[in-house]
């Protein structure tokens, strides 16, 4: 197994506040890691750091074998982040949004229809983003991530706003990830839903990362 994520003594500041305060983490290829922890613990910061969207103040961040301090742009091409926002354009249809991100990643046009089917959004493919329901937007965000065929899939509260169909779709995507050669790091507060999908659970508290077996302080 190769390491997909390697963090060493990472400090990440949001303003003057250390959102991550010396975090260490190893994630191996094919793992599905659940990240739990209280609000404000640094979970979303951890995902944005892994996505290369947030530079560390200090420490080493290697993702997919790339030192993000050296080349986070090329690493991003192999990473997808499904965050609190959809990262999509209001005036483009679901299909056009997916097409844009597919073309940017050099993917084939066939992939667009495939991911629309995967996330059960084919019927709303020609509806503009602003016309989609909250749940459909969440599925669109997942489709945009999948069409890029990432090696590392980062999910931030992916179950929020999804109906039963959407949660089934998401569960399928997560379960199929190792077979597709994909590693998943997922932040969730809905532990009863997320835990059965994960191969490992970690907890972020006070900007530090702990395995769940370890007794951690509660803030």
């Amino acid at each position, binding site marked *: 197994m190769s390491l997909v994520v390697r963090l060493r003594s990472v400090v990440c500041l949001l303003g003057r506040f250390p959102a991550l305060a010396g975090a260490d983490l190893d994630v191996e*290829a094919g793992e599905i890691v659940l990240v739990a922890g209280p609000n404000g613990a640094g979970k979303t910061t951890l995902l944005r750091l892994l*996505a290369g*969207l*947030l530079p560390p103040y200090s420490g080493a961040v290697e993702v*997919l074998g790339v030192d993000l301090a050296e080349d986070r*742009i*090329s*690493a*991003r*091409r*192999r*990473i*997808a*982040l499904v*965050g*609190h*926002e*959809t*990262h*999509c*354009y*209001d*005036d*483009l249809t679901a299909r*056009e949004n997916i097409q*844009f*991100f597919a*073309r*940017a*990643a*050099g*993917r084939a046009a066939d992939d667009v229809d495939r991911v629309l089917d995967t996330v059960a959004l084919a019927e709303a493919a020609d509806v*503009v*983003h602003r016309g989609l329901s909250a749940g459909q937007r969440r599925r669109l965000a997942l489709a*945009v991530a999948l069409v*890029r*065929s*990432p*090696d590392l899939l980062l999910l931030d509260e992916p179950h929020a706003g999804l109906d039963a169909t959407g949660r089934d779709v998401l569960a399928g995507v997560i379960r199929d990830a190792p077979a*597709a*050669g*994909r590693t998943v790091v997922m932040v969730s507060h809905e532990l009863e839903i997320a835990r059965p999908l994960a191969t490992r659970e970690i907890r972020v508290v006070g900007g530090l990362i702990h395995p769940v077996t370890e007794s951690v302080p509660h803030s």
Partner: protein
Amino acid sequence: MSEHPERTANIWREAALVAGKDLRIEARARVAVGQILPFGLIVILLFAFALDPDRGVLARVAPGLFWVAVLLAMLLAVGRAFAIETHHGARDGLRMTGLDGGAIFLGKAAAIAVQLALLEIVLGMGVIVLYGVDVHGIGVVLLTAAAATIGLAATGTLYGVLAAGLRMRETLLPLLLLPVIAPVMLGATRAFEDGLDGVPGDAWPWVGMLGVFAVIYTTIGVMAFGALWEEAA
């Protein structure tokens, strides 16, 4: 690891992708047609009312008024080009694509240039009709418009991303941008005057200056946009 196709995409393909996306959004949102174009026409119309047409003043000042209207409309177009990236975290989505910063710059600048070119056509017809302007040197007028439009789009895109990370970007963008594009205003106005007067020979130095300005700011933009785009987060 899943297989990744070889990234054969070059900067021009990526720029065309970004430009196509921006233009499609503008065509659908109709901000350019519904707000920017009417704004430019109102500026032209207000000058027509404010100045006395009987004394031929309008025809003499038409080049300057035309470019003032274009500059003001350009500020709206530049603001709009970056505003579409602020909703729903679209900017982070674009960053995650790993597209080359220079390609994003060229794409955004091209989309703004296309909108400005369409605006200039309509405003030009408005000036001819409302101000009674006769066009003698059409070639130099078209070349001037092309060089000035590229320069304005490149400079606007560069300063647009500079202002994108600022809280008061709507008010700061004109303050930052207008002094920088003063040479374009001057050169384009003088070249238009010479072109419209039928003495295109006098216009070529101004057209050359506009061309150099466009090349300089396009080059700076391609080189610097990526870092500025990241820092604007």
